[in-house]
C-alpha cells in the first residue's frame, strides 16, 4: 500500500471568513474516503482545493507522492490528473454522451479515443447510449455519464461532490453501490463529499466529520460509530440522547440508566459531571433492569417501533424496539442501555 492522497494542514478563507482551518487527511491507493458535514462545513471547499478550483491560503497537497499544491508550487487543475464528478454533473449539453466521455482524451488518436469510450460505456452500463444527448437521459443515466467521463482518463484521484443528491432515494442506494463497485474494481482512490451519514458509511473506507471548517475526526466508519471523540460527532453520525452523569467514589460513572464501569484514568474528582450518549437502537426493554420508564408516545416503523420514554427522574430518551408487539402509551417498562458512550 502506498499513500495516494496526502492533505497537510490546509487552511482557506473567502475574503475575511475562515472556511478551512488546518485540515489534514490521507488515503492509501484504492481507498475511498468521505467528507461528511452539513452545508457550510467547508467540505466542498476542501474538495475544490484538492481539484485546483480554489487556492488554499496555507498547507500542502500531495498526490502519489508528488507535490501539487503548496506555498512554492501550484499546479493548475488541468495538469493534476484528478477527475471530478459535480453535484449537478456539469455534462456538456452541446455534446453527445460519447463526446462528453472522450472530452478529456483530445490528445490521443481518434481511434484510441473511440475504443476507450466504448469500453467506458459498457463499464458504466450505458452501452448503446453514445449518440444520445445528455438531456435525453434520466438523472441516474446522466450521473453515470459524468462518472464515465471522469474515469476514462484513469485519474490518480477521483473526487465526487454530493454525487447522489440529485437522485431519488431508491435509486441513490443502487447507483452508489454500482459506483463503489466500479471504483474498487479499477482501484481508483476516491474522495466523496456528502451530508448523508448513511451514504458515507455505506460508501467509504474512511469517513471524516467536518464542522465549521475543521475536520473533527478522520476514522473508519465503525470506529466513528463506536468511538466518536466528541458528543457532537456522535449526534452527527446517528440519532441519540445526551444524558448527564457523574463520577462515583470508585471511579465508575452513574447516570439515569445505571452505572458504567470506568477506571477513571483521568483521575476526575468524585462528583464531576460527565455526559453519556445513548442511541435508540441500544436502549432495550429488559425486565431485569431496575430503571423504570413510562411510554409517552410511539411511532410504528414496520420492522421496529420507536418509543419516546420518560424516566422517573424526568429525563426523556428514545428506544428503538424490534418486533410487532406495540405497547400502549402510558405503560411503564424497565429499560437499560447496552452500549452507552461516555464523554468526559
Amino acid at each position, binding site marked *: 500500500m502506498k499513500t495516494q492522497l496526502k492533505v497537510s494542514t490546509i487552511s482557506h478563507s473567502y475574503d475575511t471568513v475562515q472556511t478551512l482551518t488546518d485540515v489534514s487527511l490521507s488515503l492509501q491507493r484504492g481507498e475511498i474516503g468521505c467528507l461528511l458535514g452539513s452545508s457550510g462545513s467547508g467540505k466542498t471547499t476542501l474538495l475544490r482545493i484538492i481539484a485546483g478550483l480554489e487556492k488554499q491560503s496555507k498547507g500542502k497537497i500531495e498526490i502519489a507522492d508528488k507535490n501539487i499544491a503548496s506555498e512554492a508550487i501550484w499546479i493548475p487543475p*488541468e495538469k493534476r490528473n484528478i477527475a471530478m464528478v*459535480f453535484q449537478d454533473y456539469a455534462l*456538456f*449539453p452541446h455534446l453527445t454522451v460519447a463526446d462528453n466521455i472522450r*472530452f*478529456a482524451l483530445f490528445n490521443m488518436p481518434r481511434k484510441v479515443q473511440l475504443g476507450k469510450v466504448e469500453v467506458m460505456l459498457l463499464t458504466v452500463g450505458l452501452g448503446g447510449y453514445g449518440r444520445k444527448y445528455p*438531456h435525453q437521459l434520466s438523472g441516474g443515466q446522466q450521473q453515470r455519464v459524468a462518472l464515465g467521463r471522469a474515469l476514462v482518463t484513469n485519474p490518480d484521484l477521483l*473526487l465526487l461532490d454530493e454525487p447522489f443528491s440529485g437522485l431519488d432515494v431508491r435509486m441513490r442506494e443502487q447507483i452508489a453501490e454500482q459506483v463503489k463497485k466500479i471504483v474498487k474494481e479499477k482501484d481508483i482512490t476516491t474522495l466523496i463529499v456528502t451530508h448523508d451519514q448513511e451514504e458515507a458509511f455505506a460508501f467509504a473506507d474512511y469517513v471524516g466529520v467536518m464542522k465549521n471548517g475543521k475536520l473533527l475526526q478522520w476514522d473508519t466508519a465503525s470506529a466513528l460509530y463506536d468511538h466518536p471523540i466528541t458528543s457532537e460527532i456522535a449526534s452527527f453520525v446517528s440519532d441519540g440522547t445526551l444524558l448527564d452523569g457523574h463520577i462515583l467514589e470508585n471511579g465508575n460513572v452513574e447516570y439515569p440508566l445505571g452505572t458504567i464501569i470506568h477506571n477513571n484514568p483521568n483521575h476526575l474528582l468524585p462528583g464531576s459531571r460527565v455526559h453519556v450518549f445513548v442511541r435508540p437502537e441500544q436502549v432495550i426493554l429488559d425486565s431485569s433492569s431496575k430503571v423504570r420508564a413510562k411510554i409517552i408516545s410511539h411511532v410504528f416503523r414496520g420492522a421496529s417501533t420507536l418509543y419516546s420514554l420518560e424516566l422517573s427522574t424526568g429525563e426523556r430518551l428514545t428506544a428503538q424496539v424490534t418486533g410487532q408487539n406495540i405497547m400502549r402509551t402510558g405503560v411503564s417498562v424497565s429499560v437499560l442501555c447496552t452500549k452507552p458512550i461516555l464523554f468526559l
Partner: protein
Amino acid sequence: MQDYQIEQGASVTGAPFLLRRWRHPDSWQISATAIALLVSIPIMILMASLFTPDREIWAHLAEHLLAGLLLNSFLLVTGVSIVTLLLGVPLGWLTGMCEFPGRKFFSCALLLPMALPSYVLAVVYLGILDFSGPVERVLKLLMPDSNGVIIGDIRNTPGIISIISLSLYPYVYLLARTGFMTQGAQTIEAARTLGCSNRQAFFRVALPMSRPWIAGGLMLVIMETLADFGAVAAFNYDTFTTGIYKAWYGFFSISAAAQLSSMLLLFVIAILVIEQRMRSRMRFTGINKEKQKRIKLTGSRKAAAFFFCTIVFCLAFAVPVTQLLFWTKDTFEIEFGSRYLEITAKTLILAAIASIITCMAALILSYTRRLHPGPVTGGIVKLATVGYGLPGSVLAVGFFIMLSQIDKSLIGLADTVFHISIDPLFRNTIIVMLAGYLVRFLAPAYAALDSNMQRITPGLDDAARLAGLRGFTLLKRVHIPMLSQGVLVGTVLVFVDVMKELPLTLMTRPFGWDTLAVKIFELTSEGEWERAALPSLVLVLAGIIPVFLLIRSSSRT
C-alpha cells in the same frame, strides 16, 4: 418537459375543443384578432406586390438598382456581423466570466451605446472626422507640411460598417454575456478538471454552448442593419431602405417602393425565422446558485482586457457624447428657440399618444392570452408582435398603400351610393404614423407587460375570489398593482423608441409633424453636423432611460 405537457394537453383536449372556444369569441379575442390583422394586412399587401410585379418598374429596378443594392446590403450585413461578433463576444466573456479592474463598471457601461441611435453616431463621426473637424485640425498642427486633407472622406464601406457596428454590438454583447453566465461556471470547471486550460475551455465548451445566444444576438444585429436608414443615408451608402425612400420621394413611385419593400421584407422574415429558432434553442442548464467563480486575469491580460473595454466604450459612447455636449454648448443660443420647442413638443405628444395606444394593444393581447391560453391565441400573439423586426420604411410603404386603398374605396362608396364627395380620411393624418408605430413597437411593450402578467397566476385569482374580491375590485386590488410596473416599463420603451424612430416618421408624417429625429436627418443632409447636436443630445438622454431599465432588470435576475 414543457413541450411534452403541451403535446399531451393538445391530444387530450384536442382541436375541436380549441375551436369551440374560438367559435363564440368574446371581446378580448375579437380585439386581439383585429390587432393581428392590422399587423398582417400591410405585410400581405407587400408580399402580394412581390408576386405580382409591375413589369416596367421591375425591369427598371433590375437594370439600374438591384445589383448595387444587393451587393451593398450584403457587404454591410457581412461586415457588421463580423465586427459586432469580434467586439460583442470577447466583451461578453470578459465582463461575464472574468475578473479585472473596472469589470463591474464596464459590464453596465458597455450597454450605454444602445442609447445612441446609429444616425446620431454617424452624424457625430462625420463631424469629428470632417475636413474642418477637431481631428483634422489636430493632425494639421502635428503635420504642418502635409498638403490637403489628411483623413479623407469616411463615407465609404468600411466607414459605415464601423459606425453601425459600434452602435449595434451591444446586442451581441448582451446575449453572449447572458449565454456565458447562464451556462454556468461549473461547466468551465468541469472542463478544467478534464485537462483543458482556460483558453481551451473557452473554445471547446463556453463558445459552443453559448452559440444559440450569440447567434440570436447576431440576428438582431442583422435585422437592425437591414432596417437602418439614418446612418446609411448620412453616409450616402445605398441600401434597400434608402432605395425605398428615393423611389418614394425621388420618383414618386409607390409601386417601385413597394417592390423594394417586399424584397427587403423577404430577407427580414428569413432572419426573423432563424432568430426564433435560436431563441427556442436557448436552454438554461446548470444555473449556478453559488457565487460566480470568475477567472482572475493577471498581468498583461488584465491590462489588455481593461484597454479593450475602455477603447470600445470611448469610441461607442464617451467620445460621441462628449462631442455632442461641446457642439450643443457652441450652438445652443442659435438653435434653442420657439421652432425647436415646437418640434420637441410635437415629438413628445406623438410619443405619448403612440405609447399609450401601443400599451393598450399589448394589454389586450396579454389578457387574451391569459383568458384563452392555447395555440390559436399563441399564433395571434406571434403574428401581432412580428412587426418589431420590420424596417420602418417597409411599414411606412405597407401602411400607406393599405390606408390609401381604404380611402379610395370610401371615396368611391360615398360617390356611388350617397352621391357626395368626401375628403380622404386617413391621408395626411397622423393615423398612418400611429399605426406604423403600433406595429413596430408592439413587441417590446408586450414583452414588458406579459412578464408581469405571467406572475398573476390563476391561483392568485382564486385566492382573491375566496377572499371576497370580484370584478373591478379584483382588478383594482390585484391585477392593476401587479401590472403597473410592466405597463410603465412598456410605455417608457415605446415612448423612447418613437422619439428615436426615423424612417417611419420621415415617410409618413403629415405636414407640420416634424420630430427631433426628422430634424436631425434634415440637418445631416445639409452637412450641418454641429447644429444637429442639440436634438441628438435630447434623444441620447431619453435613450439612456431604457438602458437603465435593462441594466436594472438584468442585475436582478
